[in-house]
C-alpha cells in the first residue's frame, strides 16, 4: 500500500503531463515552462539518479537553490521513490554536512549534476565519519523515517542544529488536496511561489499546484526584495493565488503607493509565517481589489493547522490581534494549561495540535519526547506541542500571545519578553530590539532591553518608557534600557540573537 502512496505526487504530475503537455507548469525568469518540458528535465534527473545505482534504503540529500532544474530534481526523487533531505542552502557548509550525515544520505544531489564542486565537497564532509550514531547507524529507518517518507524538511534551527522533519507521503497527499480545494488551484490557476524551495510553504504553492495542473510563478530568490520585480511577476502572469510572509505584501504596498498599481487577478491572498502588522493588513484590499484574505497558522512539523479568513477588511474591519483561526478539516486542537490539563473557557495556555499532515516525529528520535506527546483523549492521537502560547477569548477565538520559550517570571509574574519587544518596536525611532531576562537575586529576573535607534533621531530611555507606559503592564516594563546605534547581533537565520545580546551585557557589566 505504501508503494502507491509514495508515488502519489509523482503519479499526479505524470497525469498532468499526459493531460495537458503544453500547459505552463512553471514561469521562470519571465518564460513559461510547459508540463512536457518540466517532465523532460525531471526525466534527465531521474536517469542520472538511476544510473548512479544509489542504495535503495538510504535517502539522498538535495542541495539546490530554487530553479526549474531543482524542482525537476525533486520530481525525479519522488518518481524514484527516494526520501530526500531538502535543507536551506543558506546554512553553513558545516551545518549542512551535519544534517546530511544525520539523515544518513547516500549522496548529495545538485541540479547541475553530482559532479558539481560544492556537492562533491559536501559529500566529502558527509563521508567524514560525522555520521550521527543514533540516526545513521545500521538501523535504518529511524523513528521518524519510514519507507513512505518522501520530503524531509528541516526546522529553521533558531536554537542549535535544525531538526529534520520527515513527512509521510500520505500527509503530503492529504495536505495538497486540501490546499487545492480551499484555494481553487486547478488547470489554469497561476500561483506565486515566494518562499525558498526548502520551506514547508512550497507544499502549497509549488507541490499542490503541480499536482493539480496549475502553474507556479517562481520568485527568484536573488530578487525577492525587489518590489517592482514582484509586482511585475504578479500582474504579467495573471496570478490568482499568493501565499507569503508579510514582507511580500509590504514590498507590493510600496509599489502601490508609488504608482497606484493594483493586482486585480489575485483571488486568494494568504499571509503566514509571521504576524502581519495591522497597517499592512488594512491596505491589502487596496492592493488586491478582488481577493479573499486569509491568515494561516502552521509549522514544519504539522504543516498548516489553522486558517482565518478576514471579513470586511475593505470596510475597515482590521483586527489589531489577528485570530489564529479555525482548524482545517481533520485537525484537532488542544489548549493546555500550565498544569497539563485542557484549558476550560477563557485564558491562556500552550497550543497543541494534531493534523492529518503531520510528521511521525523528528528523524533524531531523542528530540521527540518533549515536542510530541500522546494525550489520553478519545482519538488517542500524538499531539505536537507548538511552544506557542495562545489566548482563548470569550467568543472562543484564539490569538497568539507569544512563544512559551520567551516567558520569564518577574517578581512571580509570567511575562513574555516578546510582548515587551513588540511594544518597544512600535516606537518609530526603534530599528530593532532585544529584551532579555537578567537573573536577579531579589526579583528572580529583571527585564533588560537593548534598543537600536534610527540614526539622527532623539531617543532615550525616558522617551521609550513614556511610549511603553500605555502599552505594557508594570511587570512588563524593562528595569534597564540600553540604547545603541550599531546593529544588534544576529543568528544564522537573521533574527536578533538574544543570547549574544545577554552575553554582551554581562561583559560590559563585568567591565564596570
Amino acid at each position, binding site marked *: 500500500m505504501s508503494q502507491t502512496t509514495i508515488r502519489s505526487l509523482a503519479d499526479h504530475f505524470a497525469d498532468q503531463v499526459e493531460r495537458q503537455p503544453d500547459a505552463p507548469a512553471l514561469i521562470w525568469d519571465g518564460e513559461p515552462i510547459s508540463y512536457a518540458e518540466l517532465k523532460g528535465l525531471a526525466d534527465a534527473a531521474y536517469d542520472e539518479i538511476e544510473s548512479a545505482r544509489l542504495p535503495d534504503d538510504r535517502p539522498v540529500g538535495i542541495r539546490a537553490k530554487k530553479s526549474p532544474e531543482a524542482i525537476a530534481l525533486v520530481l525525479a526523487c519522488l518518481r524514484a521513490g527516494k526520501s530526500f533531505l531538502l535543507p536551506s542552502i543558506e546554512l553553513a557548509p558545516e551545518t549542512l554536512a551535519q544534517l546530511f550525515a544525520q539523515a544518513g544520505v547516500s549522496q548529495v544531489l545538485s541540479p547541475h549534476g553530482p559532479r558539481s564542486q560544492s556537492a562533491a565537497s559536501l559529500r566529502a564532509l558527509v563521508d567524514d565519519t560525522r555520521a550521527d550514531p543514533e540516526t545513521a547507524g545500521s538501523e535504518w529507518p529511524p523513528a521518524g523515517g519510514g519507507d513512505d517518507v518522501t520530503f524531509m524538511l528541516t526546522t529553521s534551527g533558531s536554537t542549535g542544529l535544525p531538526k529534520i522533519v520527515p513527512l509521510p507521503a500520505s500527509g503530503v497527499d492529504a495536505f495538497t488536496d486540501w490546499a487545492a480545494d480551499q484555494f481553487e488551484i486547478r488547470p489554469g490557476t497561476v500561483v506565486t511561489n515566494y518562499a525558498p524551495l526548502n520551506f514547508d510553504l512550497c507544499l502549497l504553492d509549488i507541490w499542490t499546484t503541480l499536482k493539480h495542473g496549475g502553474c507556479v510563478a517562481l520568485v527568484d530568490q536573488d530578487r525577492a526584495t525587489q518590489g517592482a520585480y514582484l509586482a511585475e511577476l504578479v500582474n504579467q502572469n495573471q496570478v490568482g493565488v499568493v501565499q507569503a510572509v508579510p514582507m511580500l505584501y509590504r514590498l507590493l504596498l510600496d509599489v502601490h503607493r508609488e504608482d497606484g498599481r493594483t493586482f486585480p487577478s489575485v483571488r486568494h491572498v494568504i499571509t503566514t509565517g509571521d504576524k502581519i502588522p495591522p497597517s499592512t493588513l488594512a491596505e491589502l484590499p487596496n492592493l488586491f481589489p478582488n481577493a479573499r484574505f486569509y491568515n494561516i497558522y502552521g509549522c514544519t512539523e504539522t504543516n498548516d493547522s489553522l486558517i482565518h479568513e478576514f471579513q470586511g477588511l475593505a470596510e475597515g474591519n482590521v483586527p489589531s490581534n489577528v485570530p489564529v483561526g479555525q482548524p482545517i478539516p481533520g485537525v484537532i486542537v488542544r489548549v493546555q494549561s500550565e498544569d497539563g490539563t485542557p484549558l476550560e473557557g477563557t485564558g491562556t495556555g500552550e497550543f497543541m495540535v494534531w493534523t492529518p499532515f503531520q510528521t511521525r516525529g523528528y528523524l533524531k528520535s531523542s528530540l521527540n519526547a518533549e515536542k510530541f506527546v500522546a494525550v489520553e483523549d478519545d482519538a488517542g492521537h500524538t499531539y505536537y506541542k507548538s511552544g506557542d502560547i495562545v489566548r482563548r477569548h470569550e467568543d472562543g477565538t484564539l490569538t497568539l500571545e507569544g512563544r512559551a520559550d520567551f516567558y520569564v517570571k518577574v517578581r512571580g509574574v509570567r511575562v513574555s519578553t516578546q510582548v515587551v519587544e513588540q511594544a518597544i518596536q512600535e516606537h518609530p525611532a526603534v530599528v530593532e530590539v532585544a529584551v532579555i531576562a537578567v537573573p536577579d537575586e531579589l526579583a528572580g529576573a529583571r527585564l533588560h532591553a537593548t534598543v537600536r535607534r534610527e540614526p539622527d533621531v532623539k531617543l532615550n530611555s525616558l522617551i521609550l518608557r513614556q511610549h511603553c507606559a500605555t502599552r505594557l503592564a508594570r511587570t512588563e516594563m524593562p528595569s534597564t534600557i540600553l*540604547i545603541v546605534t550599531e546593529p544588534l547581533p544576529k543568528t544564522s537565520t537573521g533574527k536578533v540573537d538574544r543570547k549574544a545580546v545577554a552575553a554582551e551585557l554581562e561583559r560590559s557589566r563585568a567591565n564596570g
Partner: protein
Amino acid sequence: MDETTVKIKAFIVEEFMPDVSPDELEDDFDLLTGGVVDSLGLLKVVAWLEDEFDIGVDDSELGPDSFRTVAAIKEYVDQARPTANAE
C-alpha cells in the same frame, strides 16, 4: 526650578536613567508606571532622601503614591522638613 526639585531629578536620572538629561524629566512623569523606579528602586530613593535632606522616612509612609512623581517626592521632602521651605 527650585533646588530640591533639581537635586531629586539629578539623582533619579543618574541612578535610573543615565542616558537622559535631568531637564527632560517632567515633574509629573509617573516614575512607577514608567518603570523607572520599581519597589527595589524605591528603597534606594528613600535611603538617598534620608541622607541628602536629613529626614526620617517612616516605613508606614512608603506607599507608592508618595513617590510616584518628582513633584510628589518634592512635596514629601518639603513636608518632612518645614524649615527648609521657609529659607
